[in-house]
């Protein structure tokens, strides 16, 4: 089971949208994923507990990737195509 978090400034609107989109993509790729959403502040402290952190490109610099954690920055949060491409490029599936 992949542990995934979507993060945005306040952890409300944008991350919720990203979460719905990534859930769709993972479902389509038949990947079991547990997707959460939260604010950047929280996600920063918890990033190491997740396999993937999704956020807007402008917030990528807030995160440090790790041995376990991959950081994926999105330009268009509504584009499932972009999410899928970036998941594949990062070698997650």
């Amino acid at each position, binding site marked *: 089971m992949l542990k995934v978090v979507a993060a945005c400034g*306040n952890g409300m609107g944008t991350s919720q949208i990203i979460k719905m989109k990534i859930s769709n993509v993972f479902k389509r790729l038949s990947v079991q994923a547990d997707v959460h959403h939260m*604010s950047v502040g929280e996600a920063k402290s918890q990033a190491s507990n997740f396999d993937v952190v999704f956020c807007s490109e402008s917030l990528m610099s807030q995160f440090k990737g790790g041995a376990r954690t991959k950081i994926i920055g999105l330009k268009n949060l509504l584009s499932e195509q972009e999410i899928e491409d970036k998941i594949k490029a990062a070698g997650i599936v």
Partner: protein
Amino acid sequence: MVLVIWKGLFANIMAEPAIFIGLIVLIGYALLRKPWYDCFSGFIKATVGFFIMQAGAGGLVNSFRPIMVGLKDRFELQAAVIDPYFGFNAVNAAFAQMGWTTSLIMVALLVAFVWNIILVALHRITKIRTLFITGHIMVQQATTGLWLIFIGVPFMQNNIYGVVACGLLVGTYWAVFSNLTVESTQELTGNAGFAVGHQQMLGVWITDKVAGKIGNKEKSVEHLELPGFLQIFNDNVVATSTLMLFFFGAILVVLGPEYLAKNKFFNPASGELFIKYIFKTTIQFAVYLYILSAGVRMFVAEMTESFKGISDKILKGSLPAIDCAAVYGFDAAGGNSILFGFLFGAIGQFVAVIALIAFHSPVLIIPGFVPVFFDNATLGVFANKKGGFRGLAIICFCSGLIQVFGGAFAAGAFGLAAYGGWHGNFDWDTLWPGIGWLIQNFGSLAIALAIIVMLIIPQLQYRRNKKGYFAAANPDMEPELSTNPA
């Protein structure tokens, strides 16, 4: 018999917003044919989330007391934080005091959402292309809208007439003003397929029209070096704590240790230092705001999923109007416009707060994090695109001024300064104080008028650009194409 059932229904469900919102989610999930365990967990999470939010709200009210009491007592001043959560909190406290039913807010929200769906479904007539789906914003706006109507129109007070009027008014605002951001957002994002559905939609439209005239887009923000410490404001916990420490700390210092000790807020006899008291008291705002937002996040996540699922089934091809932060990824300056927008907005707000003090305003405004950051960052991204650094600086500085002055007017005029908060985002410091003022003076007539005037806006937009109007949102929406393919 019927009356008994109704009374029971009212006391146990309708008057209990947490359970009510849980049931709305449950019904939504059931309509989407989700398995029963998903329906159940949706119901539980929406209800628990709402109760968590109320716990945070209660804590905020308590932390506020020394400051509210002190300012009133010593300076005959009222203080309002301009922030949608503080505004939401203030309305809820006011509702409780008036003995009004807070669940009505959720009914109003539902009416507004359904009305927005209808306006989109009838897009050939209404020219509305967007559906507003930013859940937490919908909760806040329905709340403030209902307050304005309840206090302004006696026959609509605390009853279903007021709720329906609020639903139509707020739903029209969602549809019309998110529709107004379609062109500028699609241009900014290279047709990413969404519009802004947030709290500064009028601001986005004005920025898009004005930025090019006052600035130069060739001189973009990206050529500027940014101090690294500004990065901490991307973290809402740090940002809120810092703002509150600064502003509330200043107020506590002015009130002074003697006064606070005399009123038993501060206890020097226990050996507590005043500076520690200030730090602990102000940091509590961040604590309760965090709890409150965690609750909002939990129940709104379920609500949005339920709403989104239903609207996807009914409406095909409409454009979703979503959180303003979705445009941040499209900043031509790689995120610098966001921080510069925040910076200039903050400077504008500080200048305006000093002006309020200097001119002895009866309402003191305390900048909240959400309007100063999210509004100005959003306007900054749009301003930089059309007007470069100069456009951004001027627009965000002015926006900061407007937020504080508009907020001070609204908090005072609509009686919420007494409860310590006002909605405070750009549209709620410009458009809505205007609508609110009209409602206070002309009652239900003003509500009808506001709805009609708003509905004319998309007609004017359509008239200016008949050909590309629907294609700008979504090619599937072009009525000419779908009705006569020739």
